[in-house]
């Protein structure tokens, strides 16, 4: 994909890539990437990082974001119309570093892994936010 393309090309690329990945990961299920030990580590990190007022603020930011209706389903697209909640930088610096194509995203109290190229939900972890 070139670095200065037209919107139609972005759209076509995104759809084609989405289909390709969806087919390739047809059997993907929750917990494939957020494996049990990783999930425990992430939960503990969030819990440690956000205490008292900080946690209250994070909860407010995350819960007030327009993410209602985002499906908690692997291999489903994150709806384009929904907000991409900011991950607090102080937390992001403590979470495991991901390849640049994959992103953490909060949806309510749940933590998602989303493919930035095609918007597909790669994995999710329920109630990651205490």
């Amino acid at each position: 994909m070139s670095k200065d393309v037209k919107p139609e090309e972005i759209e076509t690329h995104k759809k084609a890539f989405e289909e390709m990945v969806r087919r390739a990961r047809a059997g993907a299920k929750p917990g494939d990437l957020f494996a049990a030990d990783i999930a425990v580590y992430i939960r503990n990190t969030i819990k440690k990082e956000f205490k008292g007022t900080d946690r209250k603020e994070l909860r407010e930011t995350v819960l007030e974001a327009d993410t209602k209706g985002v499906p908690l389903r692997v291999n489903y697209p994150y709806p384009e119309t929904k907000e991409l909640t900011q991950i607090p930088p102080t937390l992001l610096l403590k979470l495991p570093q991901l390849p640049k194509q994959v992103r953490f995203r909060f949806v309510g109290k749940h933590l998602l892994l989303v493919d930035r190229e095609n918007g597909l939900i790669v994995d999710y972890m329920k109630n990651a936010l205490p």
Partner: protein
Amino acid sequence: MKRLSALVMTIALLLTCGLVQDVRSQKAVAVSKNEPLKVNLPIKKDSVKFAIIGDTGSGTDKQQQIADMMVRYKETFPFEFVLMMGDNLYGGDSAKDYQKKFESVYKPLLDAKLKFYATLGNHDEANQRLYEHFNMNGDEYYSFKKGNVTFYSLNSNYMDKKQVDWLEKELAKNNTEWKICFFHHPPYSSGKAHGSDTQLREVVEPIFIKNGVNVVFAGHEHFYERLKPQKGIYYFISGAGGKLRSGDVQTTQITAKAFDQDLSFMLIEIVDDQMHFQVISRSGKTVDSGVLTNPRKKMA
């Protein structure tokens, strides 16, 4: 029957209010069309001239009116490029969205070969980095140089270690007179709805201070605010280019000037060690203007 007539009355009232508001805003724009535009900027030959818009991508008439006002001001103040503070496309990133919320709105500026440099907001997909007219060169964070100014566009939505490392490295190796960072979430803000992004501030502010960043522009808040310098850095919020959160600014100790009564955009001119700015509302009224001296130069 009573209920029905009450309903009819309510609808009529709402329609009337809507119409009145619409006519008012149109009148305000129409009136200023006949008035000469007042530019409070030096308009020097070799200066760096640019405009700033934020939170634009609504595709509404109001966004269009701001764009029209920018075109009018460009006739007097020939700015060469535009910085976008994020939330470039609300509600979707399809080809139609790009058309409706960006290309058609800023067509005269795009036709004049003006470059837009975008940053990503919390409503923007990362794929916008590939879009030809956002000049991000495929990156979610990037820098570019104009005259004696280096601009750093950051992705405040996802400030991970890679980006932090990149920023530190890029700033440290650069000796440009002006280092200007722009991104979506404001480290300092007097907004009721969002307020200061303290988490972001905790990470980026020490890097800015250490590496001599002079000015920071942000959006996210749908109003204009100029903050009092914080630890030697000038902060501005320009997030009312397409949406307005009227009455959202609670003037605080850090506020130097704020405007939340209409949409607005900024014009900037950097001449040597001085940065001149002018903030203009949708009706063409100047709501703030002034000149700042490069804080590093001031200290030297």
